[in-house]
């Protein structure tokens, strides 16, 4: 598991909530640092990378949280 500065607990949320949380909390990390979204929502697998492309942030990749829920890692670029 990668070290991230902020991990957003989006368990139980349906789309587009996880991406809304990501957008809302991107500013919580400094430029160059990592923020992660933990979500069961199947759409997050596609929508977090798509959001990064649209908002010109870096999608680092997916891993899993300690409880096995998918985690999507983003690097703040701006």
């Amino acid at each position, binding site marked *: 598991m990668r070290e991230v500065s902020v991990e957003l607990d989006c368990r139980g949320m349906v789309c*587009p909530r996880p991406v809304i949380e990501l957008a809302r909390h991107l500013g919580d990390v400094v430029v160059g640092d990592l923020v992660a979204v933990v979500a069961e929502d*199947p759409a997050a697998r*596609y*929508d977090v990378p*798509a*959001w990064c492309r649209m908002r010109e942030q870096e999608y680092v990749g997916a891993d899993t949280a300690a409880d096995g829920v998918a985690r999507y890692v983003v690097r703040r670029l701006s």
Partner: protein
Amino acid sequence: MTHPGGYLDSASSEPLHPAARESLLAALDRGYADPRRLHKAARDARLLLDNARAVVAQCLGVRADEVTFTSSGTDAVHRGLLGLARARRSRGDVVLHSEVEHSAVRHAATWGGSPRLVGATGHARVRVGDLVESATADVAVCALQSANHEVGTVQPVGDLRLPHDVPLFVDACASMGRLPLPGGWDALAGSAHKWGGPAGVGVLVVRRGARWESPFPEDDRVDHRGSGFENVPAALAAAASLQAVVAEREETHARQHALIDQVRAAAAALPDTEVVGDPVDRLPHLVTFSCLYVNGEALVTELDRHGFGVASGSACTASSLEPSHVLAAMGALTHGNVRVSLTRETTQEQVDAFCAVLPAVVAGLRS
């Protein structure tokens, strides 16, 4: 009608064309008998069926003996794809197809063989080279759609030259009647209710000389490639509407292409909204776009409240639902998604009204 003029979901089903209604009503009283019998009523039904087949063949530029009416577009896909695969089963069972094929192709590939998938570009266009590279000698059949049913992108079917004599199946359900057929295929499928014919009629075309074997139990009907009692009136109505649609195609195409350009521009002007699919080389009548931070189903419901019926590839109502595999394969945003598709009667005024209401609807859902 729920949507007086606001029905913008022809890609799911086009309203019945007047030519189809007229033929259907006339044929209901004449086409009831079993076309395989020898008496007068049967000969009458057979005449109507053969007539429908000849008309469809002429509209598509194929031979009449290559055309089979099936019970749906899905049935035509199953028979076309799996019939080519079955005839080549001694070589292998790999079904090669793109990630952006219709679910009918995907499910048939899983059911009848070992699927091998190739990706697509950000416009959902399949690269000919990817298919050629993956078409090894153990591939039983390759499937490529004529145009994508969700985002409209036209696929390079005519440019595809498969090695090892791998046969090509083309799912033409999204484009039949709207675009001329591409070349280079062995079997092809269409669906009448997508061009303004009745539901429950599919068209299967198998090229003369193509190796095809029925993947399902044989049935002793008029046409050995189909099964079940022929729906003669519906086949005739499908043929009549296809003829009418092809006759007016040039005019419809130009009009719808321009109207969709207008919807694309209106959607692209919305903040944080992405219009997907090829902007030019596409089906004339549909466009798909995704709005960031919006629930797709809520967007459909809100547009419905304003009188517009549209489809969505989003799956935001439950965490167990998978969103559109086409959008996912393209790397497009899957939430906040709507597909707008025009009927042959959609007017400039209706498109203006849709474009006028859209910004406030999206802004309202975001706030």
